[in-house]
């Protein structure tokens, strides 16, 4: 990797956005989970749901905070590293991001205070509304941001006039060819992430024999949601695959690891390759025979298009695209397996006692995050060498900032973000170690409106009294 500005700008953006995406993914998922759990509490009056709610509320609050801080950086970073891209794409994606801030961000900030805290102040029904509004806010945020990113992948609704982009049709900009396929895929990924987080923590407690009621309910809820979601996710994923095959063939060609214009027939499904981009071939490839044809062409002997179908100056780097895809897909398969296992264990009435399964759940706790990252690497490195597919190449989009400066700030970002992550993990792990019920609402202790609308710590006894009144 050379020390040139284009590469450094890409690495810096890749680092900050990869770090950032971890947190909104958790926030979107946990917000919805919290809405469901609070709804269950209101409906069943079972205090276990309140306990689950308060436990994940504090983790949600911390993750939300880090997400906001790292998101603030991104809103400027388009211009910092890629000024030419910002100048060209601003008219199209600028308003989308502006609307994201205006509608969702402010919606979340508005209701977050009441959600994190005002149970005692505003009454259970209004509080539930606040939780739902926050979940809605995160969903809307995702929609706008996905619209902007999808526009970069499959641009529409613009013409180029005098070197500037003019929007001709806003509906086409927003509802570009890939948006409505990528949006449910990302949302489901977020919900799956939360499901495995919840199930994993529950499994951890079960293995240690602690907080049994909380743990059982967590594993039950987490695996239930994960099962239904993963079925939908692989379905959506396949549809999305077909869409991207049509609109970004170069990405999908790189994603499967085949170089020749037509792969051998029947085609294997590669799991490990050592690609040589310069010589346009794989130095090593390992795969499962026939499976490539079956999965990719839905036939026994179909042939798959290889990357040589794209001229070399428009090819993405195969290694990153391939492994991003395999990591995401591999984890999806594991999730599906876990889901199947969970259904079987339920049938056998031993969901909470099979220790191998519980250990699997613990290992799979961060699986949603890793899969989401893999998917985003597929999406973004597969779009290269374009930053706006077909319109602007990444190397033409870079800011006039010298390489040493980019390197210095990259190092600064890595150090400070490492600090954020360390602090976040420290507190999350401490929350988990302390267990549910004991931690006084940490969310209530942290900044802002949340902190001030302070009720007393609500335990089951006066919670039910509040509900009853």
């Amino acid at each position, binding site marked *: 990797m050379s020390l040139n500005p284009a590469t450094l700008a890409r690495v810096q953006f890749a680092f900050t956005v990869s770090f950032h995406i971890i947190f909104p993914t958790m926030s979107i998922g946990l917000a919805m989970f919290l809405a469901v759990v609070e709804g269950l509490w209101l409906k069943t009056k079972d205090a276990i749901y309140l306990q689950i709610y308060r436990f994940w509320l504090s983790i949600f609050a911390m993750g939300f905070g880090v997400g906001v801080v790292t998101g603030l950086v991104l809103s400027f970073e388009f211009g910092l590293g890629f000024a030419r891209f910002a100048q060209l794409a601003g008219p199209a994606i600028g308003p989308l991001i502006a609307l994201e801030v205006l509608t969702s961000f402010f919606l979340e900030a508005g209701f977050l205070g009441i959600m994190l805290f005002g149970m005692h102040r505003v009454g259970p029904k209004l509080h539930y509304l606040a939780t739902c509004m926050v979940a809605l806010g995160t969903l809307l945020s995702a929609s706008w941001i996905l619209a902007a990113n999808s526009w970069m992948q499959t641009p529409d609704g613009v013409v180029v006039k005098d070197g500037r982009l003019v929007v001709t049709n806003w509906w086409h900009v927003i509802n570009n060819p890939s948006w409505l396929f990528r949006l449910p895929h990302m949302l489901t990924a977020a919900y799956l992430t939360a499901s495995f987080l919840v199930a994993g923590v529950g499994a951890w407690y079960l293995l240690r024999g602690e907080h049994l009621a909380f743990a*059982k309910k967590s*594993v*039950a809820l987490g695996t*239930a949601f994960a*099962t*239904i979601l993963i*079925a*939908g996710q*692989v*379905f959506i*994923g*396949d549809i999305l695959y077909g869409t991207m095959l049509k609109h970004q063939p170069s990405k999908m060609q790189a994603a499967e690891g085949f170089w020749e214009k037509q792969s051998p027939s029947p085609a294997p499904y590669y799991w490990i390759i050592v690609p040589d981009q310069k010589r346009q071939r794989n130095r090593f490839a390992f795969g499962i025979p026939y499976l490539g044809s*079956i*999965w990719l062409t*839905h036939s026994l002997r179909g042939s798959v298009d290889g990357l040589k179908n794209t001229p070399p100056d428009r090819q993405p780097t195969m290694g990153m695209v391939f492994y991003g895809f395999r990591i995401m897909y591999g984890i999806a*398969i594991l999730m*599906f*397996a876990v*889901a*199947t*296992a969970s*259904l*079987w*264990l*339920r*049938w*056998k*009435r*031993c*969901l*909470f*006692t099979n220790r191998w399964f519980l250990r699997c759940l613990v290992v799979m706790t961060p699986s949603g995050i890793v899969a989401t990252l893999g998917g985003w690497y597929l999406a973004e490195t597969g779009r290269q060498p374009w930053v706006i597919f077909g319109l602007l190449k990444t190397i033409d989009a870079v800011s006039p900032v010298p390489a040493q400066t980019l390197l210095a700030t990259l190092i600064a970002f890595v150090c400070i973000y490492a600090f954020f992550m360390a602090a976040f993990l420290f507190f999350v792990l401490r929350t988990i170690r302390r267990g549910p019920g004991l931690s006084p609402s940490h969310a209530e202790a942290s900044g802002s409106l949340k902190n001030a609308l302070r009720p007393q710590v609500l335990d089951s006894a006066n919670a039910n009294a509040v509900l009853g009144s």
Partner: protein
Amino acid sequence: MPKFLSATVSNAFGFIVPTMLGTLLFFTIIGVFGIWMAVGGLVFAVTLASAIVGRLPAEEEMR
């Protein structure tokens, strides 16, 4: 001896059957047998999951 064997067989059966069913379901949902089978597979999977999750207690004691 036969009792021990049947326990192993029963465990193996307990492992193989869901694995094969799950694999078949997976292939169906990702569209190997066509889009309509995929939709059908998805509907089946969600219905089955909902039924099992909704109606069966996950452990021996009653909920």
